[in-house]
């Protein structure tokens, strides 16, 4: 079953499926770009042959400016350059679907997304003295962008620098909008990050493979380690119910490779496990890509 996307009230691939990417409104350019990604997502999901994922939540999960912002809420303060970078990525996705892409991360995979790819990432512990995983996740993601694009410029941002930039309040934690703002804070210019809605495990894998495989852009996941519906999807978080962030630096068929600031070494989960982790969170299911 190919996932479908509803954009501006218009269903592209079907009427019954929830949105799997950010709602895009406003200019024609942005709408076309979003339609692009919708159709290519469907194509890619079929081509990749990945599982369609678990059942989504039984009741609609809300968007929220803090915990699950809509595309409009996220893009309010974007510069024209950030819109340009975002649309350029969507164009690449469309080119991939059309077979006209000319970009790629591998010499043997020009114009395609490799089936497996592992980008560079410096793993940063959240640490006992630090209060949350959001800034550690941003620090890890920045390290990849610095290595490949020098954006933010070398030397690598440190955890304390990122915490200061994010103006973190330890007693509250990290909201999704904060992580997205930090990733787009002006010191990196290659990828305009968005929390995009995902409807199933295939969508999580797809968003990850597009960013990591095509652009070496790490992605971020926000979820919860337990819910009554999904249980404990992450093998190393049994018996604990915890909100958490971690980034992905790689993927292979059916798997996503993450650098968890709690465990601070490489680990891989199935696409399904990451999706259920995201789905455990009571707000709309999203990936920062």
């Amino acid at each position, binding site marked *: 079953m190919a996932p479908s996307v509803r954009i501006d009230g218009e269903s592209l691939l079907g009427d019954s499926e929830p949105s799997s990417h950010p709602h895009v409104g406003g200019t024609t350019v942005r709408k076309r770009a979003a339609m692009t990604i919708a159709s290519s997502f469907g194509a890619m999901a079929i081509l990749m042959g990945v599982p369609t994922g678990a059942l989504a*939540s*039984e*009741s609609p999960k809300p968007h929220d400016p803090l915990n699950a912002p809509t595309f409009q809420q996220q893009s309010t303060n974007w510069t024209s350059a950030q819109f340009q970078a975002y649309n350029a990525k969507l164009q690449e996705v469309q080119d991939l679907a059309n077979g006209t892409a000319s970009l790629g*991360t591998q010499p043997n995979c020009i114009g395609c997304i490799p089936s*497996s*790819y*592992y*980008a*560079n*990432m*410096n*793993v*940063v*512990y*959240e*640490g*006992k003295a630090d*209060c*949350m*995983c959001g800034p550690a996740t941003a620090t890890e993601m920045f390290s990849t962008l*610095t*290595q*490949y*694009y*020098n954006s933010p410029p*070398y*030397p690598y941002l440190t955890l304390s620098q990122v915490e200061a930039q994010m103006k973190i309040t*330890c*007693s*509250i*934690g990290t909201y999704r909008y904060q992580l997205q703002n930090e990733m787009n804070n002006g010191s990196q210019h*290659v990828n305009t990050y968005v929390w995009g809605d995902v409807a199933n495990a295939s969508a999580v894998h797809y968003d990850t493979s597009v960013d990591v495989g*095509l*652009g*070496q852009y790490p992605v971020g996941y926000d979820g919860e380690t*337990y*819910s*009554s*519906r*999904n*249980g*404990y*999807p992450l*093998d190393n978080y*049994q*018996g*604990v*119910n*915890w*909100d958490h*962030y971690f980034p992905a630096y790689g993927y292979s068929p059916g798997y996503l*490779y993450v*650098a968890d600031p*709690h*465990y*601070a*070494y*490489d680990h*891989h989960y199935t696409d399904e496990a990451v999706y*259920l982790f995201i789905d455990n969170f009571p707000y709309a299911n999203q990936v920062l890509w």
Partner: protein
Amino acid sequence: MVGRTPDPARRAVGRTAGCLAALTLLIIGLEGCAEPPSSASSTATPSGNQPLAVDRLDPHDWLSLGPYGVGNLGCSGDEIAWTSSTQPISKQNNRNDVIKVANLTAPDPRVVASARHGGDLTDALRATGSWLVYLEYRQNGQTSSADFWYLNAVNWTNEQLIGLASATSGPALQELPSYDAADGRVVWNQLNSTGESILRMYDLGKGQWTTLPLPATMYPVQPTLSANSVVFVDNSTDPYRAQEDFFSRRGSIRRFDLSTNKITTLSSDPSAWMPQARGDEVIWTAMPSTGPSAVSGVQLEGGPITAFGSDPVAPLTDGSIVVWYDSSDLNFMAFGLSSHHLVDLKIGNWPDIRSVFALCGDRVFFALPPVLDGSSSTIRYFVLPAGQV
């Protein structure tokens, strides 16, 4: 499209090492390549040199709960306990707020404990005799600390409640306790008022609390009990300990003899995590910084360390058998400590048996999450194949 790499020397070294750069104290480089990292695949490697046997077992439905989740399972004798919610799974913000108990042969569930502080009862259930030990806590925002935690013991025959330990302010909120109950005692770790990790014990028969006299140089966590021994992870040996929080604390395996106060080291490898001691055996998950995790074990008296298999989730033992969920194989595995037989347990027709589970005599009780079980919960069990393991 590959951009400039600011530190090419470091990157080259990492690639030579096989796509995963060596660990540094604070930062690990994960190097980009199209080959899987070393942890991408793993194979169960029993040290008993036995080929992997496969046993297909039929599950038995024990109790249907309808659209309510099961947070954890525990058992003692013929009593099965589980955490659940008063709200159905369709409620996005539901939490485990009750603990229920039912008899194995006549399952008539009754609530024996509830969340009294608005917290979550998701954590482990440990049972000894007719006592059930559980933790109520609430995460502080999205941080790795808690707003509060309460460690309690409840007697399911008369609902007598004992507050074993709690924290509502101060350093103790930085780490949730890890705890075990066996042979009429409860043991747990917690941070004291100066932020040092200590092991506390409560004797349910005598009604006495004690603090184990451990050297100040040790950082004891994840304690477990068997007879007169408390086995724990000494996180002070982990080179990465300064950056770890309580989820990920690993270390060497130490044994404290309650009769002599003598401490011995059962495994000096600093990658041990979440041990369990039962009978004469200690098992744990070895979590190296790179590569797959393994379920390992050693005799309580010490000796050679045995690796039973890889990618374990929540391994449990009763001293004669080890059972775990293999996160690569997606099945339960069982290893006989006498026979040294490793058996891949195929239960029913589920492609993935990922469940909460409890080892109860010769049975393993398990509950799949509703997402894998038709949007409802059923507690089931299977009987371990005595002849195989």
